[in-house]
């Protein structure tokens, strides 16, 4: 009678015959498995018993393969081209408070403000004579600063002039030498310019608070650290990267590389990490506490790297190069995960990663600003919950099977313009020859007399404190 408690009365019954057996048959009520009306969703009972789901690994592998193929099929990163400048775009700046607004300065002294959602220019200013060398926005987003070849620093209001008013800067500072770059402090009314020396300015004054130099060369860019806001980094044409603390009068330390660094960018999430875009086709990610060895050497460009910008997550950065392409690197990988190029895009001079980490903007020689997706195959717009679930599932599968040779090959494949492709081949041969020579030299000399220098250390000349 034990069963009487467990089994409902209807599903079993003792037979009336001589033998009193207990029997229960599988008897499903279809009402529990079929939807009642056509307006309902279909019922899908689940059972996770592995014997009902055989071939788990091979099926997941095939799913991952399909997901990887689809990712390449849907990889259409180019979104828009903003045209209107009448000379090459020399510098870009993001609006700190507004995702849709960007500012750009051109080689003819013109500054334009763009609206990204409408993809048009909303304001044009003839700011300087000659190049606009640098542009930066104030942290509050009400005004912005430009420096130009005409030895001036100008502050402009973000909103346009009222009806009938002249387009005029808020302030103009006349300097003695040409300024080549500018950056604004992230929290205070202080900005820094660079040229012959690094000057730190109070917004209210016309003279710098302090000027710092180390050596006698022109400094090409200066950047404030977004986390430790008193720190600055600059790079000069005598191949060095100099770090400063705003609170003291002298620079902190510098590292000398093989070739000139064009610009640096601080990691917005890790205070002491920065990446330098170098003329020797590489990017170097440094830990400022240990400058003698870069954390990572990022190699993939085939010409000088001109600009670099971090994604707001601090996990990836984008670099612009003279080889007419932009590349996206993970911070901890030495090879790029993505390369963007178009037939019409010439030497890319400046690049920015938008603050929502979804888009990339680049300004190039041929007067256009291009807008790209940061994740080439991402679907734009609102996703339904099922789409999102499928996306997450596929993402995880791709991650899980990423090292399988078939999948890796498909995921890694990129079409490259012929110029870049042949350059890569050529440089591979050159590198191989150099390596072979080194190996031979080690092989034929006294053991231990020729030191093995790692790729990371190879490009660092010295660290000076």
């Amino acid at each position, binding site marked *: 009678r034990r069963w009487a408690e467990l089994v409902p009365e209807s599903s079993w019954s003792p037979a009336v015959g001589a033998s009193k057996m207990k029997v229960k048959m*599988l008897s499903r009520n279809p009402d529990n498995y079929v939807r009642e009306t056509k307006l309902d969703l279909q019922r899908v009972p689940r059972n996770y*018993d592995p014997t*009902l789901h055989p071939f788990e690994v091979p099926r997941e592998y095939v799913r991952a393969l399909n997901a990887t193929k689809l990712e390449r099929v849907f990889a259409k990163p180019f979104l828009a081209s903003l045209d209107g400048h009448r000379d090459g775009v020399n510098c870009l700046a993001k609006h700190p408070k507004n995702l849709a607004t960007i500012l750009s300065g051109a080689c003819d002294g013109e500054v334009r403000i763009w609206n990204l959602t409408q993809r048009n220019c909303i304001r044009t200013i003839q700011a300087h004579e000659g190049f606009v060398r640098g542009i930066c926005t104030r942290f509050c987003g009400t005004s912005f600063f430009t420096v130009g070849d005409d030895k001036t620093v100008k502050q402009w209001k973000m909103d346009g002039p009222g009806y009938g008013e002249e387009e005029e800067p808020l302030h103009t500072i006349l300097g003695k030498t040409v300024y080549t770059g500018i950056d604004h402090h992230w929290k205070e009314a202080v900005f820094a310019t660079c040229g012959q020396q690094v000057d730190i300015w109070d917004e209210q004054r016309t003279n710098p608070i302090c000027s710092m130099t180390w050596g006698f060369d022109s400094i090409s860019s200066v950047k404030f650290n977004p986390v430790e806001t008193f720190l600055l980094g600059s790079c000069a044409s005598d191949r060095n990267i100099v770090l400063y603390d705003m609170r003291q009068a002298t620079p902190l330390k510098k590292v000398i590389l093989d070739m000139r660094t064009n610009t640096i960018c601080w990691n917005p999430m890790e205070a002491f990490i920065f990446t330098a875009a170098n003329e020797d086709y590489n990017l170097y990610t440094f830990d400022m506490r240990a400058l003698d060895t870069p954390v990572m050497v990022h190699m993939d460009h085939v010409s000088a790297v001109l600009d670099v910008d971090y994604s707001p997550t601090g996990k990836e950065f984008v670099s612009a190069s003279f080889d007419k392409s932009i590349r996206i690197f993970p911070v901890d990988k030495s090879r790029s995960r993505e390369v963007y190029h178009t037939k019409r895009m010439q030497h890319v001079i400046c690049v920015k990663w938008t603050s929502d980490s979804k888009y990339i903007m680049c300004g190039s020689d041929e007067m256009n600003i291009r807008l790209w997706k940061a994740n080439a195959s991402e679907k734009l717009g609102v996703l339904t919950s099922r789409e999102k679930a499928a996306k997450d599932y596929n993402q995880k599968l791709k991650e899980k099977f990423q090292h399988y040779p078939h999948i890796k090959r498909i995921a890694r494949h990129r079409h490259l313009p012929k110029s870049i492709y042949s350059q890569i081949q050529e440089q591979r041969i050159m590198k191989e020859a150099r390596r072979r020579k080194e190996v031979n030299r080690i092989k034929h000399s006294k053991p231990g007399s020729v030191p093995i220098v790692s790729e990371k250390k190879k490009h660092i000349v010295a660290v000076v404190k």
Partner: protein
Amino acid sequence: METAPKPGRDVPPKKDKLQTKRKKPRRYWEEETVPTTDGASPGPPCNKKNRELRPQRPKNAHILKKSRISKQPQVPKKPREWKNPESQRSLSGAGLGSSPLPRSKAKTRSRLEVAEAEEEETSIKAARSELLLAEEPGFLEGEDGEDTAKICQADIVEAVDIASAAKHFDLNLRQFGPYRLNYSRTGRHLAFGGRRGHVAALDWVTKKLMCEINVMEAVRDIRFLHSEALLAVAQNRWLHIYDNQGIELHCIRRCDRVTRLEFLPFHFLLATASETGFLTYLDVSVGKIVAALNARAGRLDVMSQNPYNAVIHLGHSNGTVSLWSPAMKEPLAKILCHRGGVRAVAVDSTGTYMATSGLDHQLKIFDLRGTYQPLSTRTLPHGAGHLAFSQRGLLVAGMGDVVNIWAGQGKGSPPSLEQPYLTHRLSGPVHGLQFCPFEDVLGVGHSGGVTSMLVPGAGEPNFDGLESNPYRSRKQRQEWEVKALLEKVPAELICLDPRALAEVDVISLEQGKKERIERLGYDPEAKAPFQPKPKQKGRSSTASLVKRKRKVMDEEHRDKVRQSLQLQQQQQQKEAKAKSTGARPSALDRFVR
């Protein structure tokens, strides 16, 4: 029993013979475009050495590479029986920590640890979801230990509810018998074909006839393809494919004189065994012959598939059962099962047990987990001509016009052959047997027609709606069909261990490392020799530096010695164990070096 000499096999070989071809180790991506080239193995598992080296893990054990996606748990996360993860992990013998990643970096290791923890969590969650299962399996119990085999079908029919009683029926078709039959994967549809050409398909639950034709030719076997809309019929000369209206869609002349059909649903392969001795794999999604393998054993008329790994088991007249994959020209393994020919083979749904019956009137159950040894044997008066396993592990044997059903202790245990669970006598000799999936029903084709028997406890009570749903609508079927076709598993991936794909490929990893060292001229991962750091003034004399260096070197040396000693001890223990379990010491042992 005699066994091919195998390294590391402690069990003394007995009567059964396991032969596996030794192949050069090959990576699975090699020669994938030409899967039929000789020696192109689908992966490391197909080569015997690999299989032998790896401890065969239980099917339900925790496996290292499993999806950890909680969003769409389309894949089984977790065996239902698994209540104690810790004990199972040690059973499996290869948790993540012991995965053969040589000198894995700290970052990778930590990532793996996180993944492992995640996986454990999802496994536990999946196990807990068992609570939500709606249905209970059926059962049959006699009064006070009364033998259930004495209970006849009429009693059961009388005792159960009307809906279940309607599942018992007899089709009296004396004219065109004997019949072969096949249920569709959802268990909703039944197709049967008689020796004299009668082919019919019906929805057996509602008893609605889908089609009925006479092909005017002997029908050897009949099989549903991936859905109930397509039907493969092995006729006297060629293989024909019909749709559910009975319209002939294809006549495949490359498969001639086919005796048995098997359909591998996840690979979309139709395996055919022919009188000419060929095992042919036909990809039904693209209509191409994937592989035609010559078994070199004469007429093939005993065939069965292993649902766990899609390996085809062929029974031969010399008493062996050979295991085949389309990627290999040679059998993956050969097992000597019987004296005299093999009459029937069946493999259970977990791929753990294989039942065979032979001309020597014996019925044997083999363990397929690496050892290939018989677990139990029983001599039957007439021998069984047909065998089949149910989803919950019941074994049915057709002997003349009688079917016997044996049950095990529970799911996942081999059926015990001492006492039958049920028996039934039919009106003619049995010609085909199959348990209906997800129902407590056994279909028997015999010379008098087709009988549907009630076997309580045979079917899996809870189906998975995304895999095979008996109640699916047409739209659901169409959607499922597209999904299934998208994730069609390539035929090259069929091998004995379907999880082998997820294992770390140690061979190519080490090969790559070796190549890298050769290319660079030095080992970039080698540990640099210890250099003592200069200390404070006065304590950094040359003598103290040397002393410190010496100290570290000695410590390293001691570590090495300790490790090697430990290894030696382990080996000795192993040997001692092997000796103690081995045969009686022989006088000739003294000459062994």
